[in-house]
């Protein structure tokens, strides 16, 4: 509690603060409303079939979101499978297993990781185009892919991109656990591995889950880097849903579709434009949900908030 009770005068600072905050909140919610309103022609045309539709062929007026959702899901899954074990393992190593005197090392690592998290996605995309694409092409040679632009390439690149996020947030989660817990565990004769696995990890679990979810949020929404390496060919809704084959083929995600030339093409046709903004609406809702859960886990209620 700061300051005296309100004395009846209008306080300009408060008015402006609340005004600016309302403006900010209104703009972010307004984007959601904007996408919903712009996609109305589509909902009238396709209804809920948009969400369950398995084909996207705009010349025939067929709009189904699932092929793009499928691409996004595959790419994000590859990214998390790659980044989660690697990131959490590395965070455990720097936070728990390095000798306690190595504080400075830990700080240096954290700084380096955060700087890497700041490298623009277009630069990661460039690295993907010039280096990773050839690597994946050679890696996949036995399955004889058409090019290095595949869902797998997109997923690996995303994995590299979310790695700093996951490491940094996991490190925060581990650092939030009191040192006395570690001392007590070691004093009871637990080994380092047992201390980490049985004492630290169970307590850090919400924080680690949040790290992975916020990483997932970034992976779901990343546009530019994925766009450059994924080939941007509409996924045929795979007849072989459980097959790994699509990994070796070019694909399309929600974001690469939105960033592509179809967005310009669609401007003149209300229905097509409705479909594009419908995709934006789906992406907004999905990412907001995942990150909202992640943020709630990262910011436990009570005292500090």
């Amino acid at each position, binding site marked *: 509690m700061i*300051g005296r009770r309100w004395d009846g005068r209008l306080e300009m600072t*408060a008015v402006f603060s609340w005004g600016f905050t309302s403006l*900010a909140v209104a703009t*972010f919610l307004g984007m959601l409303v904007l*996408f919903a309103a712009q996609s109305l022609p589509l909902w009238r045309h396709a209804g809920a079939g948009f969400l369950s539709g398995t084909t996207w062929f705009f010349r025939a007026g067929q709009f189904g979101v699932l092929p793009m959702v499928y691409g996004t899901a595959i790419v994000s899954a590859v990214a998390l499978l790659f980044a989660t074990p*690697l990131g959490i393992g590395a965070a*455990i190593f720097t936070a728990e297993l390095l000798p306690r005197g190595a504080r400075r090392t830990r700080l240096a690592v954290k700084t380096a990781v955060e700087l890497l998290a700041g490298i623009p996605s277009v630069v990661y995309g460039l690295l993907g185009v010039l280096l990773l694409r050839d690597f994946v092409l050679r890696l996949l040679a036995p399955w004889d892919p058409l090019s290095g632009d595949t869902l797998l390439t997109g997923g690996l690149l995303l994995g590299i991109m979310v790695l700093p996020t996951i490491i940094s947030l996991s490190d925060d989660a581990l650092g939030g656990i009191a040192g006395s817990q570690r001392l007590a565990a070691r004093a009871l004769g637990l080994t380092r*591995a047992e201390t980490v696995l049985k004492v630290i990890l169970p307590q850090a679990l919400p924080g680690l889950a949040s790290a992975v979810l916020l990483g997932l949020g970034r992976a779901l929404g990343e546009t530019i880097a994925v766009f450059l390496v994924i080939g941007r060919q509409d996924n045929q809704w795979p007849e072989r849903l459980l097959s790994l084959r699509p990994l070796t083929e070019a694909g399309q995600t929600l974001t690469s579709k939105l960033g592509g030339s179809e967005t310009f093409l669609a401007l003149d046709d209300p229905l097509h434009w409705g479909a594009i903004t419908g995709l934006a609406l789906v992406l907004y809702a999905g990412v907001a949900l995942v990150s909202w859960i992640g943020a709630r886990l990262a910011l436990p209620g009570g005292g500090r908030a």
Partner: protein
Amino acid sequence: MRRSVGRGWIDRAFWLACALCAACVGVLLAGIAGAILWRGLPVLRPGFLTAVSSEAGASGGVRDEIVGTLILITTALLVSAPLATGVALVHAVYLRSLPARRRLLVALYTANALPSILFGIAGMVVFSRFFGWGKSWLAGGLLLGLMILPTLSVALIERLRSLPRKYREAASALGLTRAQTVWSVLLPQCAGGLLSGALLGLARAAGETAPILFAAAVFSGAGLPSGLRDSPVAALPYHIFVLAQDSFDPSVESHLWGAACVLVGLVLGLSLLALPARLRAHEEAQNA
């Protein structure tokens, strides 16, 4: 206490596995930094920064792109800074209940994760459909400003939170009103936080491509903007984005690495400038 042989081995295996993860990450991240520097630095002659791009990016430099990026991020900051200050003050001063503060913070984290392409699409709807603008630096700056708003707000909130409680108590004891407390205690004490938050926001805005894709950026032929509505700018990330889509010409490739190096230098430079203030805030928060 005696350790059984098995436990010792498990412990060693666990240590090794984590060390391997850390080593992989280290090699990967060092490789990324190394690749950018190794390929980009040789391209960075002084002329590269001051010449205009020519032959569709195969020769010349990136002067217009640097200028355009600076225009965009300055606009973004001017839009975003007052709004973010307002949001941070609402969180720190005007919201009384803890649950409401937490909701605001969760909302900011969520907004921070929104995909940048959504700002691009929204900008296309608002500026080109509703307002009938062509590509414009102002539209790009507004979109980028909106995008960095959550980042900036969170940085400010963290700084305000790390201020020792006694400052506020002293202000209260002196009989300052809330507005006086804000203007003569909280904001001056947080100047460092404002600055580092602003630098981080600038760094993030400088690297983004998706928000300016449809509403602001063009590939070439844009120098200084001459108006508001139909005056596109060039921008470093957009330049790289376009060139990367057809990178088979070796001279384009070396040009690309050079541009990437400039962009990374700009972004990391801004983040590094923000670093001392952030570290100090971190320390103060721990000592408070």
